[in-house]
């Protein structure tokens, strides 16, 4: 199989459950409560944004899901035959290996499973094509712009066709124009593959444009304060970005975020 396969995405409310975080807390050094009693249900096909001010535990939640650390209390349960299964990750930095070419970077997830480059060459080329970098197959990361590096990082996350992709503020360091383009392309990619995405962001606009579920978090201690759905249909494009629907949603989400921060407004003074 060289094509990335397509999973159908059922409408919200009819999606099978992928993972469940129940009453998750994470305390660092016995003093810093990064997360306090977080509950979250993720369904297959969700494009879920974790939205909140910095320090509210978004990255911590993602790292717990990725299995990079264990929760202090609570459990994460996975449905389906894999325990954690295939996941792809995109960090805020492109996190590429500078000594390897673009194609060799995208090869990484396969390589770590013991698959030779030759055996997955077509899938790598395919993934690069999907992010518009087919011409940069043999380029080194330093020859690429920030946005292009991020595309390589995305190709690497998607190349194994994982069920779940975790993205931690992937476009936060990019300029607005590049960011919008990447948002468009990310949506196109997700709908093509039908994977589940957890997208961490502190941008209301980005979360409304991309996701069908938004989880608003607050800091000190990090927790979920509100869950919202964005029921606008996919595919979403420029028309959606300028629609009244979009504006209405951003207003609701902004309000929720403002309340989330407002809960502890005195902390920010």
């Amino acid at each position, binding site marked *: 199989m060289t094509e990335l396969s397509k999973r159908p995405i059922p409408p919200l409310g009819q999606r099978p459950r992928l993972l469940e975080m129940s009453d998750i807390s994470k305390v660092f050094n016995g003093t810093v409560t990064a997360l306090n009693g977080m509950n979250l249900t993720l369904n297959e096909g969700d494009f879920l944004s974790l939205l909140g001010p910095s320090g509210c535990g978004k990255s911590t939640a993602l790292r717990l899901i990725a299995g*990079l650390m264990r929760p202090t209390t609570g459990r994460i349960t996975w449905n389906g035959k894999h325990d954690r299964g295939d996941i792809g*990750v995109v960090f805020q930095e492109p*996190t590429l290996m500078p000594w390897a070419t673009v194609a060799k970077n995208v090869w*990484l997830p396969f390589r*770590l499973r013991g698959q030779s480059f030759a055996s997955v060459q077509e899938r790598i080329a395919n993934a690069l094509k999907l992010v518009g970098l087919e011409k940069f197959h043999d380029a080194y990361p330093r020859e690429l712009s920030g946005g292009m590096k991020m595309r390589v990082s995305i190709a690497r996350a998607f190349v194994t066709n994982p069920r779940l992709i975790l993205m931690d503020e992937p476009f936060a360091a990019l300029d607005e124009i590049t960011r919008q383009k990447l948002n468009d392309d990310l949506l196109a990619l997700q709908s093509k593959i039908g994977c589940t995405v957890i997208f961490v962001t502190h941008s209301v606009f980005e979360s409304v444009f991309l996701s069908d579920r938004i989880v608003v978090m607050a800091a000190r201690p990090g927790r979920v304060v509100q869950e919202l759905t964005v029921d606008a249909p996919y595919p979403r494009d420029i028309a959606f970005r300028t629609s009244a629907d979009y504006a209405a949603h951003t207003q609701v989400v902004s309000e929720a975020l403002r309340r989330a921060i407002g809960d502890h407004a005195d902390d920010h003074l």
Partner: protein
Amino acid sequence: MLMTTSDPTFDADEARRARNRRIEAVARWAVPLAVVIATVFIWHWWSNSTPQRGMIFPEPLKVWHRFIKDNAMLFGSLMVTLRITFLALAIAIIGGVALAILFTQSRLAELIFFPYAVILQVTPIVSIAPLIFIYVQDPLARVLICAWIVAFFPILSNTTLGLKSTDSNLRDLYDIYGATWWQKLLFLKLPSASPYFLGGLQIAGGLALIGAIVAEYVAGISGSGSGLAFRILEASYRLNYPRMFAALLMIASVGVIIFAATSFLSWFFLRKWHESALRRET
């Protein structure tokens, strides 16, 4: 308005930069070469300035003739010195890298061995060498140990630093993909440590030669070595100054060649991706 160039896309500033680049391209070779030639001439003039001076400060031509005449003997000694230098360097590389890997794997190992590494490094080799010569009888081994002690530390410390500075996000990524210890070492840690290692190698290459020479000196005329340092000592006892100079110049050449070779290696392995090996137009 006054334009000095007819090409409108090539302004005065660019023209000046292009000129500087052309000058730089020539000067890079011409200046060092001119300095060497001038040195030889001054040397020649100086040693001929009084009749007595030439006796203890032989002119370049005399050194050259001696070099040709003693060629077989000097090259035999060169081989001895080279063998020790490269053996010491090879052991320093293997030992230094292996210990660096151990250090990053086990904090306890680092706490145990690091003090010894530092003590060996900060104690001048000339003061350790006589002791080594008491306990080690094998003539090759004793000199080898000295050269190794000097060459080993830069490899160890640089590689350790390099192994420790792998990108933490990349480490997380490898963990998420379930990478094994070997995969992390081979595909992630060693490549990201390679610029540091190559920097250490550049220093260690020169130090291995210095260590070999110093050990030969300490071993002295009584030692059974017959490397280039031994030739210098021997020639000085026989008041054979041209041969001293010839041997000295050979040692210097070896040092230069080692430096050039390690610089080339560094450039070769890093040229595609590392900042240090990239040419940037200024």
